[in-house]
């Protein structure tokens, strides 16, 4: 029997039981749609995180405190409070460093009139926009003088400003951070939110002010260092290490109480984590594809039983085992592949909706689609072969008398 004939038979057969066909396909549709959607979500999240990290500036080195060690127990990285504002100041003297911005962060209630929100209040230095790649929108950034004199001035992230109802005319107005009045000196340009954390929702104040009013100690969470040229990244990393080793009294072979991380390291770590997550999600989703395949096998076995007499007739009029086998296999394949195609449409639509909701760029990945099609084909073959071979092996004498 020819390929076209087999296909025509399968289509007309599946057309006669639309409800059954639809329900059987549903299993594959759900399986493929969830694979496509979850992989796309995984990739969208990854590229979102990546662009956020790249937005920080590729010449960025982050210095973070090391772990606390209490007896034999080692705490989480960054749990120690060993880095200080003075450490940050010391780093500014290094030759290839373009800027140093410590971050002294606390979460505070910020209020203007009846508007208020809780957001990150970060104590930092004038180098902050340079190091973390921000542009001014209105007013000016914190000055060295404001840091030197612990002035109560604030620069607002764009989202924070609009949440508080502040605009271009608000420069010079007063906001209240934990009830204390601050003068707004500038508003940053938006950097663009990507998924999880919004880089535009923050309030920046002089690092000294933050230490005195909100944090109480001068131990900083992070020191961002902007390196003048990308070529000097490793040199500067070594210089930072040696300066801090010296300041913290760590000799050769001692365990440093801080970590210097470059943006590329961070990117590759995030990349490998999110790849792992994507694979995990796809793996979970493909379980439902297998369940869908079992649904197909079930329906095909029932179908072979129901159509025993038809199989007998076909054999009597000249069908070979192979013809019968292919007829049933084609039905299973048509079920799984058309289910797969519908599933791709559903999955792509779902991932587009999720992308819009989460605010990252919708990426359409043809590889995922191709893999899904191949996968549903394989499911069709695996779960279609057994019922089809059952049909092919039927004895025509018995099948013709089957009621």
């Amino acid at each position, binding site marked *: 029997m020819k390929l*076209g004939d087999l296909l025509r038979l399968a289509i007309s057969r599946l057309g006669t039981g639309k409800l059954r066909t639809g329900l059987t396909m549903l299993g594959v549709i759900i399986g493929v749609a969830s694979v496509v959607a979850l992989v796309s979500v995984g990739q969208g999240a990854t590229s979102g995180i990546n662009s956020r990290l790249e937005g920080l500036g590729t010449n960025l080195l982050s210095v973070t405190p090391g772990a606390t060690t209490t007896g034999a127990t080692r705490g989480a990285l960054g749990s120690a409070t060993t880095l200080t504002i003075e450490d940050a100041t010391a780093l500014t003297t290094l030759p290839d460093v373009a800027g140093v911005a410590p971050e002294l962060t606390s979460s505070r209630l910020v209020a203007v009139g009846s508007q208020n929100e809780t957001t990150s209040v970060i104590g930092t230095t004038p180098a902050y926009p340079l190091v973390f790649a921000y542009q001014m929108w209105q007013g000016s950034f914190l000055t060295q003088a404001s840091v030197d004199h612990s002035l109560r001035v604030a620069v607002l992230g764009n989202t924070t400003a609009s949440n508080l109802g502040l605009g271009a005319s608000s420069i010079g107005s007063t906001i209240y951070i934990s009830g204390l009045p601050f003068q707004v000196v500038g508003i940053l340009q938006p950097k663009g939110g990507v998924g999880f954390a919004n880089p535009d929702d923050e309030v920046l104040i002089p690092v000294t002010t933050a230490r005195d009013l909100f944090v109480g100690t001068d131990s900083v969470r992070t020191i961002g260092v902007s390196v003048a040229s990308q070529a000097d990244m490793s040199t500067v990393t070594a210089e930072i290490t040696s300066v801090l080793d010296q300041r913290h009294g760590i000799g050769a072979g001692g365990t440093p109480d801080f970590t210097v991380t470059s943006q590329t390291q961070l990117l590759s770590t995030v990349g490998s984590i999110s790849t792992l997550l994507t694979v995990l999600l796809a793996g979970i989703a493909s379980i439902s594809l297998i369940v869908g395949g079992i649904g197909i096998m079930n329906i095909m076995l029932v179908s072979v039983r129901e159509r025993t007499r*038809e199989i007998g007739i076909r054999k009597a009029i000249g069908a070979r085992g192979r*013809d019968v086998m292919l007829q049933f296999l084609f039905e299973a394949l048509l079920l799984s592949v058309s289910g797969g195609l519908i599933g791709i449409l559903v999955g792509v639509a779902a991932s587009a909706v999720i992308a819009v909701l989460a605010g990252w760029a919708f990426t359409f990945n043809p590889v995922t689609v191709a893999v899904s099609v191949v996968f549903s084909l394989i499911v069709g073959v695996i779960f279609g072969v057994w019922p089809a071979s059952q049909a092919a092996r039927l004895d025509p004498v018995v099948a013709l008398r089957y009621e």
Partner: protein
Amino acid sequence: MSEPVISLEHVSRVYDTGKVLVPALEDVDLRIERGEFVAIVGPSGSGKTTMMNILGCLDRPTAGRYLLDGTSVEDLDDNGLATVRSRSIGFVFQSYNLLPRTSAIENVAAPLAYQGVARKERLARAKEALERLGLGERLHHQPTELSGGQQQRVGIARAIVTEPALLLADEPTGNLDSHSGAEVIDLFRQLHATGRTIVLITHDVDVAEAADRQVHIRDGRITA
């Protein structure tokens, strides 16, 4: 004289039920020449069904030789038998056995599909066969939309569309009223007149009268 269409030599068919061996055909010799119209007559349980399965290459003899249209079939595997059925045999069944949810013309065209005939030619030949049997107005009717007599005529059209060497009919009038039955028998007479070899298997002596020769079978043996 040309070779016979059917030649059975010492053919036996024994069913192995696991505990006992049940002989259904024992040492049967039978020759049917080209263009003959033969009725194989016997009561139920006489071995006619086994005979029909063997003649139709649906089953193999356990002993003896069977030459169909010059081909020895007792050693063929399942695929070989299917090829022989496709090329040399046209079946007409008591219960018509049309493919369900399939129009008359598609039913008649189906055996040609298994011969690898192109669809256009298949449909043309099926249409011609149906028209020859007076069903030119019923080409696109489903089996459920046809009367018993019409269904059986579709069945006959399907059996002759491949121009087989042997037309094998198993109680073709068994499910029909006497009028339709007579029409079907008449059709067989007409087909016989055009030179077809027909084997009619029946328990009905009156139906068997239509054939030129009667072969009586009882307890797995040919008696006359």
